[in-house]
C-alpha cells in the first residue's frame, strides 16, 4: 500500500465522517444564532436516521426516505419548540426530553420493523457514492476522493454552507437571526416577532438534523441499529461552539473532527492496535472535541441570549 493511497483513504474517510456533522451543524448554527440551544439534536438525528431507513426499506425509494427523515425530525423539533419556545421551559431540559422521546420512539418502531422483516434495505435502494454519476470525476487527484467519490450529501452540505455564509453576511435574514440571538429586546422593539424567528430556526435545524441522520442510515451505512447516532449530535453542539458560531469555523471544525474519526478508524486497523481496546479509539474523537473546546477557552462568548427564553418574564 503506497502512502498516497493511505492519505487518500484518510481524507475520503474524513470528508465522509465530516458530512453529517456539517449538515446538522449548519442547522444548529442557525438555531443557536437565533438564541436556541437544542440538545435534542441528538434525538432529531436519530429520528431522521430511523425514518430514512424505514421508509427506504418499505418503499425501496431512498428519496422518499430522505423526505421522511426531514419530516420526522421536524415533527420532533416541533415538540421541542412548543416546550422550550412557546411554553418557555428551560431549553436544555426540553432537549433532554426530546432525546428520550427519540430513543423510545425509534426503539419501538424498530421492533415493529423487525416484526415485518424490514431490517435490510432492498438491494440497490440505498444511495451510492459518486453522486455526479460520472465515475471519471472520482478518479481525479485530490478533489476526486474529497468531493466526487462521496455521497451527494457532501456536495449538498458544501452548498448549504455557502448559502448560509451568504445569508449571514449579505441578507437581512442573517441580521435578523443574529439580532434575535444577541438582543431580542432590540428586535422586538423594532417589530420583529422574536418567537416566530426562533420557531423557524428550530424547524430548519431539525430538518438539517434529519438529513444528517438519513446520511448515517441510507448513505454511509445501509443499515439501522438502535442508538446508532451514539453521541454524534452532542459532537455537533461542541463543533458549533468550537467554530465560534461562524460557518467557516464550523467547516474547519467538522473537517478536523472527521480527520480524527478517520484516523481513529485507520489506527484501529493497524496490526499492532489489537492490544488497545477499540472503544478507546472510539472515545478519541470525543476527547479531541473536549480538549479542543478546553483549549479554545472563554474567548468566544457566543450569542448573548443563547439558551434564554423569550419573553423573559
Amino acid at each position: 500500500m503506497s502512502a498516497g493511497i493511505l492519505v487518500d483513504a484518510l481524507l475520503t474517510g474524513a470528508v465522509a465522517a465530516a458530512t453529517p456533522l456539517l449538515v446538522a451543524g449548519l442547522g444548529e448554527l442557525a438555531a443557536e444564532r437565533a438564541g436556541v440551544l437544542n440538545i435534542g439534536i441528538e434525538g432529531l438525528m436519530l429520528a431522521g436516521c430511523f425514518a430514512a431507513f424505514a421508509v427506504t426499506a418499505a418503499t425501496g425509494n431512498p428519496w422518499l426516505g430522505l423526505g421522511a427523515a426531514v419530516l420526522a425530525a421536524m415533527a420532533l423539533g416541533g415538540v421541542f419548540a412548543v416546550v422550550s419556545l412557546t411554553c418557555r421551559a428551560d431549553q436544555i431540559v426540553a432537549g433532554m426530553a426530546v432525546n428520550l422521546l427519540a430513543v423510545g420512539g425509534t426503539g419501538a418502531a424498530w421492533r415493529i420493523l423487525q416484526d415485518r422483516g424490514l431490517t435490510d434495505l432492498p438491494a440497490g435502494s440505498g444511495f451510492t457514492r459518486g453522486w455526479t454519476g460520472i465515475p471519471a470525476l472520482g478518479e481525479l487527484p485530490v478533489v476526486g476522493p474529497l468531493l466526487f467519490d462521496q455521497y451527494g450529501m457532501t456536495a449538498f452540505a458544501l452548498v448549504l454552507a455557502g448559502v448560509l455564509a451568504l445569508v449571514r453576511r449579505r441578507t437581512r435574514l442573517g441580521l435578523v437571526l443574529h439580532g434575535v440571538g444577541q438582543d431580542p429586546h432590540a428586535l422586538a422593539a423594532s417589530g420583529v416577532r422574536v418567537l416566530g424567528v426562533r420557531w423557524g430556526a428550530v424547524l430548519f435545524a431539525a430538518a438539517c438534523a434529519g438529513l444528517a441522520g438519513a446520511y448515517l442510515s441510507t448513505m454511509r451505512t445501509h443499515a439501522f441499529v438502535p442508538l446508532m447516532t451514539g453521541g454524534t449530535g452532542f459532537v455537533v453542539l461542541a463543533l458549533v461552539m468550537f467554530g465560534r458560531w461562524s460557518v467557516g469555523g464550523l467547516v474547519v471544525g467538522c473537517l478536523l473532527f472527521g480527520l480524527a474519526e478517520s484516523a481513529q478508524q485507520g489506527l484501529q486497523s493497524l496490526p499492532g492496535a489489537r492490544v488497545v481496546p477499540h472503544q478507546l479509539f472510539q472515545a478519541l474523537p470525543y476527547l479531541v472535541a473536549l480538549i479542543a473546546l478546553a483549549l479554545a477557552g472563554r474567548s468566544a462568548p457566543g450569542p448573548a441570549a443563547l439558551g434564554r427564553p423569550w419573553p423573559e418574564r
Partner: protein
Amino acid sequence: MIAARTVWPALIPFAAAVAALGLILAGLTLVGYAPGEVLATAWRGLAGSPLRLGIWAQEATPLLLTGLAAGLAFRCGVLNVGTEGQYLMGAVTALAVLLALPPSVLSPWLAALAGAGAGALWCALAYGLDRWRGVPLVLSAILLNVVAARVLGALVEGPLHDPTTAAPQSALVPEAARLGALLPGTALTLAAPLAVALAVASWLVQRQTALGFEFTVIGLNPVAGDLAGIPVESRRRLAALGSGALAGLAGAFQVAGVTWFLSGDAQSYGYAGIAVALLGRLHPLGMIPAALFFAGLDISGRQWERRLGIPHDLGDVAKGAAVALVLAAGFFRGRR
C-alpha cells in the same frame, strides 16, 4: 390560597404521567390492542405477587438515586446532564473494587464508596472544564457521558474481561462480595431502603437546613444570593460533587447488588434520572413516585413485549412524553 398554590402544581406530574400513559394506550388501541388487557398485563407484571413488587422496587432504586443526583444539581442551578457518565464510572469503579478486593461483607460498601467517589470525580471533571476552561457544563458533561461509555466498554473488554467467554462482558463479582437480597428471588437489596432514606434526607436538607435554603436561593437567583453573602461558587461546587457522588452510588449499587457484572451494552439510568428529577419537579420525595412510574414503565414494557408482542421501548416514549408535558405545563422555566 395555600391549597391552590401548593397542591395544584404537585398534581401536575401525576396528570402528566396519566396523560402520557393514556397517549400510549390510545395508540395501542388504535392499532388493535385491547386497552384493558394491556393495563391488566402491566398490573400483573408490577404487583401480581410480593415477588413482583420487590422487582418493581428494585428497578426503581437506581432511578431514584440518579434522580436525586440530577435534582440536587438542578436545584442549585448546576445543569449536570452528565449523570449518565457519572453512573457508568461509578458502576465500573465499583466493579473493579469488587473484583480486586478479597470478598467480604464489607466489599459492597467499599465498592459503593469507591463508586460514589468516581461519580463525584467525573462530575468534578465536567464542572472544572466549565469553571476553569469555559467549556459550558452542558457540553462537557454530555461529551464525558459518551467518553464514559467507551471507557467502560474498554475496561470490560480489557482488564475486567471475563476470560471464560468471548462476549464483551466483565467477570462476575464473587458471591461473597455481593450485596445480599432482602427478598429471595429478587435483587431487592439494602440499596432500596437506603435510596428512600437518601430521598428523605435530601428533602430534610432542602427544607430544614441553611445549606438547602442556600441551594434553593442560588438556583433561583444567584445574584441575590451573592449579595446576601452566600458563597455561590463553593455551594455550586458542593452540589456538583454531591450530584456526581449520588449518580456514582447508583451505578455501584447496581453492580454490587443487581447485575454482578457489566457489559458494553447501552444503559440509560443516568439519562432517565434527569427525567425522574423533572417529573418529580425536583422535589426529593416527589422523585419516589416518579422513579416508581419510570420503573413501572420499564417492567410493563417488558411484559407487553413478552406477552402481547408490543415493543418495550414504548415505555421510553411514555417517559419522554410525561417529561415534555410537565415542562409544557410551566415547570422549570428557562432563566435569564
